[in-house]
């Protein structure tokens, strides 16, 4: 894929910024610094060399001295841009969020640097990313990922079912509010993602479990999850609920916001409907919603409020 213009321009300006106070720099060092091949750095320099102020006479142009034999560069004339370009707000937020989160994750060798970075970026960024602190099981999962070994977790699903699962964890992630582990699950015989705050307990798998997990993963054909299409109407006041659903097709109608979506599970949708934001829904789900709502209202009726 060709590089986007915006990325190239950012690097061109950053090259000028680096060369503003680094002199006689090997092209190889620039390539390492900006994560591109040396040939690309030379193309970038060639481009910068012909840019400058209107008129474009030799004195108007950006100028370098280039030692061909040694392949080393110095900036001779930067036309005012021998300086480092500031971070755009979005870039600053992206960096601050990553730092905040890496700190919460407690990543080994960079911990001290991350601490001081957080303080430096705080003055620069008008944004905070709230990151739930990592649950206790994280360390054990990290160790298992590093060792490519299986663990047994006791898990409460979104439907509130409690299961014991043998999993081979592969990746830990967070969306800022909850933490997840993704991996191969022997019970589901497929890749699954689990929320760490629903992991009730965790232990290392024993030798036999270890072998059976690896064998089973080897021998499981990739199968698609069972999906169905659901259609429902959302109250316009809760429009953002529909907009937050990944992959949803949304259209406005007189009776509300029409949503159509392909899903593997429907329990979250029943919950959404119980929350009162859904006006109409597929008939099998509507029946379930009505039953559960009546049960809940009965529970409220029999339970006196406090205070």
């Amino acid at each position, binding site marked *: 894929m060709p590089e986007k213009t915006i990325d190239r321009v950012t690097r061109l300006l950053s090259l000028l910024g680096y060369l503003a106070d680094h002199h006689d720099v090997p092209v190889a060092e620039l390539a390492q610094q900006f994560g591109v091949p040396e040939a690309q750095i030379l193309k970038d320099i060639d481009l910068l060399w012909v840019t400058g102020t209107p008129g474009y006479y030799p004195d108007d142009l950006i100028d370098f001295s280039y030692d061909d034999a040694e392949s080393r560069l110095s900036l001779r004339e930067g036309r005012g841009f021998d300086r480092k370009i500031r971070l755009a707000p979005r870039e600053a937020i992206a960096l601050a*969020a990553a730092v905040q989160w*890496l700190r919460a994750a407690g990543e080994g060798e*960079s911990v001290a*640097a991350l601490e001081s970075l957080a303080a430096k970026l705080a003055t620069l960024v008008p944004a905070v990313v709230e990151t739930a602190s990592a649950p206790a099981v994280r360390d054990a999962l990290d160790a298992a990922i590093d060792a490519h070994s299986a663990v047994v977790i006791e898990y409460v699903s979104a439907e509130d079912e409690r299961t014991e699962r043998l999993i081979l964890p592969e990746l830990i992630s967070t969306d800022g509010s909850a933490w997840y582990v993704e991996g191969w699950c022997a019970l589901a015989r497929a890749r699954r993602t689990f929320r760490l705050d629903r992991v009730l307990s965790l232990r290392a798998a024993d030798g036999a479990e270890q072998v059976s997990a690896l064998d089973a993963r080897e021998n499981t054909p990739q199968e698609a999850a069972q999906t169905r299409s659901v259609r429902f*109407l959302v109250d316009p006041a809760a429009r953002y609920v529909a907009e937050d659903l990944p992959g949803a097709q949304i259209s406005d109608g007189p009776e509300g916001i029409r949503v159509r979506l392909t899903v593997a599970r429907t329990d979250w949708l*029943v919950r959404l409907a*119980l929350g009162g934001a859904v006006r109409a829904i597929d008939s099998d789900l509507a029946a379930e919603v*009505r039953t559960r709502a009546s049960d809940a209202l009965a529970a409220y009726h029999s339970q006196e409020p406090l205070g």
Partner: protein
Amino acid sequence: MDVSHPERILDLLIALGNTPVRMTKQQIRRNVAGYSQDDAAFERMFERDKDLLRSIGVPIVVDRDSIHEDDVGYRIDLDAYSMDLSLTPEEIGALSLAREVHQTAPWRDAARRGVTKVRAIDEAHDSDAPPVALELAVPDDSLDALCEAIAQRRRVRFTYTGLSSPTREREVEPWRIIAQRRGWYLLGRDCESGEQRRFRLSRVRGQVTETGPAGAFEIPEHSIEAAEAREVTILVRSGKAASLRARGSVEAYDADRDLLRINVSEPIEFAREVAGYGADAVVLAPADIREGVIARLQRAAKVADDA
């Protein structure tokens, strides 16, 4: 002479950074290399280049002549252009991990460019990327304008649909952007009520406009928690509502139920979430949240079959 797109952008940048006063569009078209002499084509190219430069944080100042209003000139504020951040090689290395951490495309792009810029500061001591991932909600369109307004301490106006209030125009002194629970929020002072409020960016309709002078207010010491967080008491069936349990303190209540206490700052969204658990989670206090859940369940009990 054939001038490539990145080259034309650099020429525009250098021209606007070196102009003694400002440059009008006429002057830009005539003097800066690479622009078409055709009116419509020039407008298109210039707008596109200007947007790109702004999106990477280049402060393009628009000067209007006080007598001739259509006499618009452009220049770049070189002091504002410069990055004011000094980092050690270890810090630059740690910050570079941001490239690996972000999973959503807009944040990955922003992090990649931000890292390029900080790598202009000095050599980087790189460390290995952790096997972890941060999935931040995709930014809303209003994010950049709000960050800019916060930096300049300018008031903003926008159209907003509240959870419990009708769509209307708001005027706000913006303080801070917060990413939380899968969404982006603006924290600030609502000029109408004079109180600290949180606005969810996905409920902002249309453009955010800056209003009034820069430096119009000071950002006071503030907590990023929404105003009064209150304790909610809930009866939860044993083994149920795991994600509610993870956020509060739990004590045994009777043989098959536990008493859960959670601090809640967004009562309306919380009522929606609790209603989703139906009879498995019954709010005892406070009364308004309990009533809110009951009202939602009553609505859900009447959910229709979708046609």
